[in-house]
């Protein structure tokens, strides 16, 4: 079995009021990564941001803002990578079909997935039992 130093498993109601709590947990965790040789403050901010963006996708789009649903988040720190998995119970969407934002057009929306893809090393969205998972990986070396 893969050796895992830390795994945090959290479930919160499908409501945006929990964004701050989960973002803060991700940020605090990133600040503890003493093996990471880059700028830990920036990494912490980016982890907070991708967690926030991924949760908003799950809450608003995949789970259609149903407050009775739950969002399930697992943050894993393996030897040299940090993996964030955000599970939803929705219909799913093809992350690769979402175009990058058109920088010449001023749209209110459409920057979330672009931000996630820009800040993480790999991003996958796929079906699992009862819903889907958005899996985002950041290499730590």
């Amino acid at each position, binding site marked *: 079995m893969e050796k895992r130093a830390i795994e945090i498993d959290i479930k919160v109601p499908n409501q*945006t009021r929990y*964004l701050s709590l989960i973002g803060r947990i991700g940020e605090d965790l990133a600040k503890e990564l003493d093996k990471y040789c880059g700028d830990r403050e920036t990494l912490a901010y980016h982890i907070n941001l991708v967690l926030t963006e991924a949760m908003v996708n799950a809450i608003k789009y995949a789970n259609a803002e149903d407050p009775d649903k739950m969002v399930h988040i697992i943050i894993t720190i393996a030897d040299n990578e940090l993996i964030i998995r955000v599970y939803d119970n929705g219909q799913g969407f093809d992350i690769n079909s979402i175009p990058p934002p058109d920088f010449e057009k001023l749209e209110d*929306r459409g920057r979330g997935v672009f931000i996630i893809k820009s800040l993480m090393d790999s991003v996958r969205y796929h079906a699992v039992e009862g819903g889907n998972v958005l899996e985002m990986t950041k290499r730590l070396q």
Partner: protein
Amino acid sequence: MNLNIETRNEVIIIYVNEERLDAHNSGDLKSEMQRLFEEGTKNILVDLHDVRFIDSSGLGALVSGFKNAISHQGNLKLSTLQTQVKSMFELTRLHRVFEIFPSTAEALENF
């Protein structure tokens, strides 16, 4: 959402007194800017001094305010962005869209 609103030299300054401007609270800022422009306000300065964290919804609310300003022949400018907040404008190329000033005073001189 905690917003302080003040008028100086015919510019309405909105101080966003929140650590986070995100999908949970940015709708309030968006509606407030919309209300002000609809009531005839021409110039809005959004001061982000207290905002440590912004997500795509927060950026989207400011874009919405900017478009509202244009459609009402007005202006929307920004001041006092923290480093990480500014880097999000750069990542999404929005620093080319907004006029961003290092201080409230400098922003007020440029309306």
